[in-house]
């Protein structure tokens, strides 16, 4: 009897310790800031995660693309970081190549990962405050604050400007990545002639609702028969008309070779509404949202 009670106690202790000590598993956030819905609109199903930035900017974004100094993977870095964070979701960011390098200009906290500019127009800048801004490279007006001076870089047309921007990013520990810009200032920026491949689509949109509140929204179109353009068109229409959202920008998240996505409830348990086909270690770059 005594032996049995010792055994039961040790089982309980082990389970409890594994539940609390596993990195990235102790997540808890204010439910009022995050809303998940699963709806049908115009014969298309949408799974949506709306994250409210205000008040207090408690919901923040963080991006990982560079291995750590000891050569640890992006996933390991994410896991170490997430130990003390209330993670809302983690998703793949931009596409990766055969060598598992994120495609397009990628800088992680000042560390250069890839300096080969891709053709896509979306350059995403993630600030240390957790905010996200996107610049349309087609406009060639990337402007950043360089020591109190607004400096313009024409990174697409001049390697000198691109190099200067990379140095600015290194000095300011900036985080940047490039991806398809699907909508900008409420207008579709992807046109016919884009990839004919069909797949399930996942987008990140940032914009304001009717009350002028800033939202970061993940939209997933689970139907696998959508081209990038068709998916973007539908998602923008859905956000404009169903969510009444004024979309500042909408970018694509990779659902191909690194279809990685993990969503948590405010209680810290995993939410299966949107789930990537692959596990987090498969991602070459990770975009995480957390509550602080």
């Amino acid at each position, binding site marked *: 009897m005594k032996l049995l009670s010792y055994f039961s106690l040790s089982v309980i202790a082990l389970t409890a310790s594994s539940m609390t000590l596993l990195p990235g598993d102790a997540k808890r956030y204010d439910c009022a800031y995050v809303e998940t819905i699963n709806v049908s609109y115009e014969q298309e199903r949408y799974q949506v995660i709306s994250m409210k930035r205000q008040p207090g900017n408690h919901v923040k974004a963080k991006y990982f693309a560079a291995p750590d100094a000891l050569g640890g993977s992006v996933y390991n870095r994410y896991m170490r970081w997430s130990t003390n964070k209330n993670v809302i979701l983690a998703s793949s960011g931009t596409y990766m*190549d*055969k*060598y598992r*390098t994120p*495609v397009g200009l990628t800088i992680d906290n000042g560390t*250069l*990962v*890839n*300096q*080969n500019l891709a053709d896509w127009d979306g350059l995403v800048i993630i600030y240390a405050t957790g905010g996200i801004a996107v610049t349309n490279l087609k406009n060639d007006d990337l402007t950043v604050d360089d020591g109190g001076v607004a400096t313009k870089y024409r990174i697409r047309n001049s*390697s*000198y400007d*691109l*190099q*200067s921007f*990379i*140095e600015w990013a290194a000095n300011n520990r900036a985080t940047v990545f490039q991806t398809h810009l699907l909508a900008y200032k409420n207008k579709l920026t992807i046109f016919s002639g884009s990839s004919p491949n069909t797949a399930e689509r996942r987008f990140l949109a940032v914009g304001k609702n009717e009350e002028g509140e800033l939202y970061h929204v993940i939209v997933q179109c689970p139907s696998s028969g959508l081209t990038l353009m068709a998916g973007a068109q539908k998602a923008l229409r859905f956000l404009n008309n169903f969510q009444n959202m004024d979309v500042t920008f909408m970018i694509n998240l990779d659902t191909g070779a690194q279809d990685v996505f993990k969503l948590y409830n405010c209680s810290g348990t995993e939410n299966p509404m949107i789930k990537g*086909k692959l596990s987090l270690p498969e991602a070459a770059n990770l975009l995480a949202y957390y509550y602080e």
Partner: protein
Amino acid sequence: MSKKIITWKKATFGLAAILLLLVGWAASVLLQPNEENATVALAFKPHAASISLPSALRRASATAVNLPSRFPYKSYLDSTDFSDARRLALDAQALDSLFPASAHNNERLLYTALTDSLSARWMHSAQADTMAHLLSIMTWASQLPVAARFEPRRATFFRALNLYWVKQVATSLEQQYRRNPNIKYAFQFKHLNQLCRDAKCGVPVSFSASEKVINNVVEGQWGYLLTKFLRDSSLPTRLGAGLFVALFLLTWLAFFYTVRQRFTPSLLTR
């Protein structure tokens, strides 16, 4: 009884001829002309006598305002030894001493001369796309980040030059890859792309599903292939694969059984 038209002799001869043709075809595909031996004359060494940049600028009546239009691009490019990064630093210094108020513009001007103007020579020649030419450019460009370390004041200039030329090589590789996707298997392409990747400017190449399988087989990634198959394949595919493996094993078993029956001396003949 009809007369035998195909004799063993003829059949063997025919098979040998087919085999020879196949070997010839395979050799013609595999043994591409060795470009490494081709003579590539790169314009790294000056083909004109060295000019003094300050005297040339004085002769051209260049001022800080009209410098971009008066800069002697042609004679400068003809006479500069690009293989020596220190030469470039000295030229930038000479420009600064002449026009001290516009140091940033001087650097940008020299950058333009060594990129746009030089590119017109290096990237638009008949040999611009040859791998040997691109490799020479990469070798030259690789010294520029080193120069940036020794000349911290001109680090942006040297790194920007390096970035420009690495991107030129990467763009050329990408264009060649788009024209002929099979070039991704060529050693020289892979080597150059690796150099571009080391410079964080690699060209993304894609592989079809079957090519990925072959690549993993060649690289001996059996564990990955099995995991990928078990994780991503549908039930009919798994059943089909199981059937295939079963048929494969059965065929071998049948073969071994037949061989054993044919060649094992029976008890009666012993």
